[in-house]
């Protein structure tokens, strides 16, 4: 069978582009406090600059292993974390840096973890795909698709039993909607009326395969919601205000005891799936259209239009840059973990003994 190189079945970049929706300008007047907006703006920048720094360090061969950046997808993490209570729970995937930082993980400890250093948030044991900071409600980044949706249910169930009003928010990708655990988790969340919010960041691709090629419905999360007695909720994942409104609503619903939600946030990653991936399976026009919908300049403009002085925004950016520089130094100066760390923390007694 001769290859027709112009056949989209052989080269997914030849498929028709899937373009972003235009910005909903009316969101400028949404009832969101300026504080919250500025905080979201700060987070957008932190996530962006930190991730770029991680990428630079990778190019310097200081980040071993793999990394999965959220460049372009920052609005989801920035907005959700801003709508959460400090004691709420976050569950994320390997693409969890943005969610970790948004919940307040120390940027230096996070970067040190990517560098495999002893001062990393996991002491170097977990690595890029497993960032966790329980003290900040960041209950983990999970690297095998599906499991953490079920685990998030458990945290929500626990909150329900303890009567704390905590909510669990669980992030995952479009590709994750096709794995069995997704189905089991959504069903259980509904029947137990759990305070959990499932957030699908639909960036149109699993690793290198377009999601629509492998999914029976056009909207991988939203079109599944009714199968669990839930409303389909779709939001522009590149607009922090849009995401914030939806997040606040879903989280408060959950907190009031009205059960779970499933939200599909439509977004796009600017780069490849992981550090090894140039992302060439995507139509160039699609990549460009989505880059033109970058949440950061858009939000910058909106804040200006809302009357924020340019200097305020520049100040935030500069402050973030300092934080990221300091984080970089912290990470680079961290020592490598050694033999004294290897056999530590398999068990709750701190050790690794499996026999006497």
């Amino acid at each position, binding site marked *: 069978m001769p290859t027709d190189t112009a056949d989209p079945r052989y080269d997914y970049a030849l498929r028709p582009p899937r373009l972003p929706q235009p910005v909903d300008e009316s969101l400028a007047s949404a009832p969101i406090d300026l504080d919250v907006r500025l905080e979201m703006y700060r987070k957008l920048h932190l996530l962006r600059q930190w991730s770029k720094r991680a990428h630079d360090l990778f190019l310097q061969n200081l980040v071993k292993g793999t990394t999965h950046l959220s460049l372009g997808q920052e609005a989801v993490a920035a907005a959700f974390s801003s709508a959460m209570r400090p004691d709420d729970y976050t569950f994320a995937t390997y693409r969890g840096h943005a969610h970790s930082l948004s919940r307040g993980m120390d940027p230096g400890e996070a970067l040190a973890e990517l560098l495999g250093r002893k001062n990393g948030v*996991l002491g170097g044991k977990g690595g890029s795909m497993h960032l966790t900071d329980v003290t900040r409600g960041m209950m983990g980044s999970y690297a095998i698709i599906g499991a953490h949706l079920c685990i998030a249910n458990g945290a929500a169930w626990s909150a329900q039993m303890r009567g704390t009003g905590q909510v669990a928010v669980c992030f995952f990708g479009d590709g994750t909607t096709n794995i069995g655990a997704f189905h*089991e988790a959504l069903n259980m969340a509904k029947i137990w009326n759990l305070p959990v919010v499932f957030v699908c960041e639909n960036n149109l691709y699993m690793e290198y395969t377009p999601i629509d090629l492998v999914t029976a419905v056009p909207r991988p999360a939203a079109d599944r919601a009714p199968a669990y007695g839930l409303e389909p909720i779709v939001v522009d994942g590149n607009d922090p205000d849009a995401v914030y409104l939806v997040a606040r609503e879903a989280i408060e619903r959950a907190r009031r005891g009205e059960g779970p939600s499933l939200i599909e946030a439509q977004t796009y990653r600017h780069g490849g799936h992981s550090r090894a991936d140039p992302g060439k399976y995507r139509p160039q026009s699609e990549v460009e259209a989505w880059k033109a919908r970058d949440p950061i300049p858009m939000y910058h403009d909106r804040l200006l239009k809302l009357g924020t002085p340019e200097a305020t925004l520049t100040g935030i950016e500069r402050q973030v840059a300092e934080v990221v520089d300091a984080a970089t130094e912290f990470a680079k100066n961290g020592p490598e973990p050694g033999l004294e760390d290897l056999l530590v923390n398999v068990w709750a007694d701190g050790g690794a003994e499996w026999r006497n």
Partner: protein
Amino acid sequence: MAELSYREAVAYGIAQEMRRDPRLVMLGEDIAAAGGVFKTTVGLLEEFGPDRVRDTPISEQAIIGAAMGAAMTGIPVIAELMFSDFIAVTWDMIANEIAKTRYMTNGQVTLPLVIRTANGGGVRFGAQHSQSVENWCMMIPGLKVVAPATPTDVVGLMAASVRDPDPVIFFEHKALMATSEEIPDGEIVDTLGTARIRREGTDLTIAALAAMVPRALEAAEMLAADGISAEVIDVRSLVPLDTRTILQSVAKTGRFYTVEENPRVLGWGAELVSIVSHEAFWDLDGPCVRITTPHIPLPAASSLEDLAIPSVQKIYETVKRTIGGAP
């Protein structure tokens, strides 16, 4: 002292712990209103109510995931998997998440949870409902693994498992459900990681687990009649593993046998033999011998199942044949 069956001991042990720790909850398929398909959770719903004893959908990943999420946020959990074969359906959750999360997070996450499950054969349920899969769990770093052989051990090791801050896989043996014994009054709490010498002997050491323990004991009686003195050790806890008790016994007897219900390859006995043959090498008077189910899926027919699982006769004959040194 009360006479309790192995089956009843499960609920008895759980109830002891649920009374002690009001946070402790249970979930699983058909465990609440029905009292479990093996009737091992009878009475718990009535005593502890539907918030603490929950029936679930047929969603093993969701069940074990919920257990993990609850445990990591401060609620100790006992989850039931109806048959141990179904561990496979949620293996990712157990082997990749529960076992590894503490280490990966460098100790940030603690998982006080117990997964109980009905293990083993002898009841003619066939290859997908009769497996002995304790080796699946034993080989995963981060899991503790327990398999009691008696009602008293069920209660005591259940308490130890529930109180342990690490995840424990608790194997209840289907073929032992109807066995019973007197159990002590008052709180019963045992210790993980301790084997128990069930019978003292001087000529050989037999390590057995769960349903193989009574068979090994019976075979030991037959051997005694022939003048061969077998020490029988109930391993009880595969992780942590009480190698000390086993190595001391082998130092005394000079010969080591395992009786394993699992199919041969990489049964728990393989690890024990690799330890004994290394660390007790100079104590050994002859080869270590493993008596196991052949390396086949377990057949359903009574006649075949009986041929497959190590019988008293097979244990007896194997020891007789090999104790002199023959292969």
